């Protein structure tokens, strides 16, 4: 796993993510300054401690020296760190201002965080879920709010992070200098599927961006997130590992893993959404009064387009799970599982 990781973060300095923007480069300078300063102080303190521990270890006949204090020395190790810390603060502040103040010509995109999905709204009315498509080399400003609880929008490659708070707007900006995919995390704990609240920034070359804008197929070239390969590999290996299990059992694992059970019970009790128990093959009344029989197609549609046919008595709050999120094999397993709950 080690080799895959370092290859994926090929351009990154050791221990840091790839530098995706100029701010990231500036940030890294400050980081490495602090790093080496810390190494210096660590060696000074702990090295000194170990040296004293060895040299002044207990020996027969050793007399200790009676030292109570040394004012000059104490003043020295009070004043020097103070100066250093003030310098660090100033440097940190100057980088911070670059980090948070978007240039005036930044392109604005609105971001809505909700449990457990990122939605991106463009000025032309287009929306994307879990995928932020932006042109290479153009400053992007995200104006963000949350629909339910606090989330946090974090792109390691751009060294930016900002909490997304319900009831107010916050913003974050970056100017992508590296085409390709960049990982987005939610970093404020938001409930069951917090760790699944991921997204990607797709930084496109200009011509590909135009294609995307026109709603045509486009290609993402450039870097990939380490996880896009690894995750696919891990998922397929998990699928292989699961493949030994009967299909309904695979489905049972999946609904746990995807956080479905946060809203859908398996014992017949109504939570945020209808229970899975005993619905398959039965009629359900929908919000608009029509009825539908729960079958493979209905389950599939309800997972991919949850707002299409909402069962009466529930709110249309479920986020859509695209094909990328739940593949066909997994879909079959989930259907088989729901079927088995009759």
């Amino acid at each position, binding site marked *: 796993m080690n080799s895959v990781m370092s290859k994926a973060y090929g351009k990154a300095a050791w221990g840091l993510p790839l530098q995706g923007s100029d701010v990231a480069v500036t940030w890294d300078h400050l980081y490495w300054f602090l790093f080496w300063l810390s190494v210096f102080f660590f060696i000074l303190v702990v090295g000194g401690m170990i040296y004293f521990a060895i040299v002044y270890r207990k020996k027969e006949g050793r007399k200790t020296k009676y030292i109570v204090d040394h004012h000059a020395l104490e003043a020295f190790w009070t004043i020097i760190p103070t100066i250093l810390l003030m310098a660090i603060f100033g440097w940190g502040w100057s980088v911070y201002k670059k980090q948070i103040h*978007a*240039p*005036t010509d*930044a392109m*604005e995109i*609105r971001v*809505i965080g*909700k449990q457990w999905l990122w*939605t991106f709204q463009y000025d032309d*009315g287009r929306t994307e879920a879990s995928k932020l498509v932006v042109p290479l080399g153009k400053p992007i*400003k995200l*104006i963000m*709010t949350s*629909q*339910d609880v606090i989330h946090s929008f974090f792109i390691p490659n751009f060294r930016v992070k900002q909490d997304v708070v*319900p*009831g*107010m*707007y*916050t*913003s974050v900006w970056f100017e992508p200098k590296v085409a390709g995919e960049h990982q987005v995390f939610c970093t404020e704990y938001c409930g069951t599927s917090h760790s699944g609240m991921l997204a990607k920034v797709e930084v496109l070359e200009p011509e590909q961006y135009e294609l995307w804008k026109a709603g045509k197929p486009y290609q993402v070239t450039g870097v990939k997130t380490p996880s896009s390969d690894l995750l696919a590999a891990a998922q397929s290996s998990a699928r292989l590992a699961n493949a030994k299990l009967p299909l309904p059992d695979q489905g049972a694992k999946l609904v746990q893993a995807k956080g479905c059970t946060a809203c859908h019970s398996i014992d017949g009790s109504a939570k945020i959404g209808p229970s899975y128990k005993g619905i398959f093959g039965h009629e359900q009344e929908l919000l608009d009064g029509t009825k539908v029989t729960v079958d493979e197609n209905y389950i599939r549609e309800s997972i991919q387009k949850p*707002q299409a046919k*909402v069962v009466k008595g529930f*709110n*249309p*709050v479920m986020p859509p799970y695209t094909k990328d999120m739940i593949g066909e094999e997994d879909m079959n397993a989930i259907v088989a599982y729901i079927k088995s709950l009759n």
Partner: protein
Amino acid sequence: MSNSHDNHGHGSHGEGHGHYIIPDATIYKTLGALLVLTGITVGLSFVHLGTWNFVVGMLVAAMKAYLVASIFMNLSHDDKSNSVIFVSGFFFLAIFIGLTAPDFLFRGDIFTEGKQIMLPVKGVSQFKRPWEPTPEIVAHGKAIFMQQCVSCHGPEGKGDGPAAAALVPHPRNFTSADGWGNGRKPSQIFKTLKEGRPGTGMASFATIPAEDRWTLAHYVASLGPNVLKDTPEDLKAAGVDTSKDTLGDTEAPSIPITAAMKILDAETAKDGLKGNIKPGHDDLEGYGERVEARTFNPNL
């Protein structure tokens, strides 16, 4: 807290301090003073001094508190360290509010400098007699709907937009005839758009020019199971003079206060007086609340 005090271990119990007994006369005098001060605060609250009301009110309260603490609680004759202890509580409280305020009252400078977020307020008159629906008017209304309303009401007006889940009561489902508060006629929808529905997530959209609001009302009405028409009386009640072709100046121009402040900010920036007014974070266009700029004229 008080570590300068009592340096000799056990010698520290402040001989005699605890045994001061307050004379009855002092108690009665203090009681009288407290009652007089209470009368003063109540009286002063009916005199309008602006912010000074607050300052004076708190000063009188502080005087009363001082009397209670120093005489009733006997701090004036007690060990000094106890006064220090008690006052330190207020000191740390001051730290608390003093350092929370720089955040709580100074949030929300998230706008890019110099860029106006709102659309211009006074649109060019595109439509004649906008209170009478035509296909063009409905189409125009739809365009505005897609910008302004989908977040709550959903793309099909079913009240299922992405922001709907968090709203109680849920946004109106326009495709159903049930539950309309102000009614489903265009003029009634127009009223809702203008005034909002207090107590719900529906804010006033008076910031949209009246003409555009009419087109929006017609589009929303068109989503219903059957389309209701306005009678001339309805229109009159809505302030429309049907004898004319345009709406006239029945509506004061208004824009969101944030936009107003933004413009103001930009204006003062030109004069080198920038940055005194910061927009509040929750007044942003879109999802938050709207605040009407009552007296602001964008043409100034």
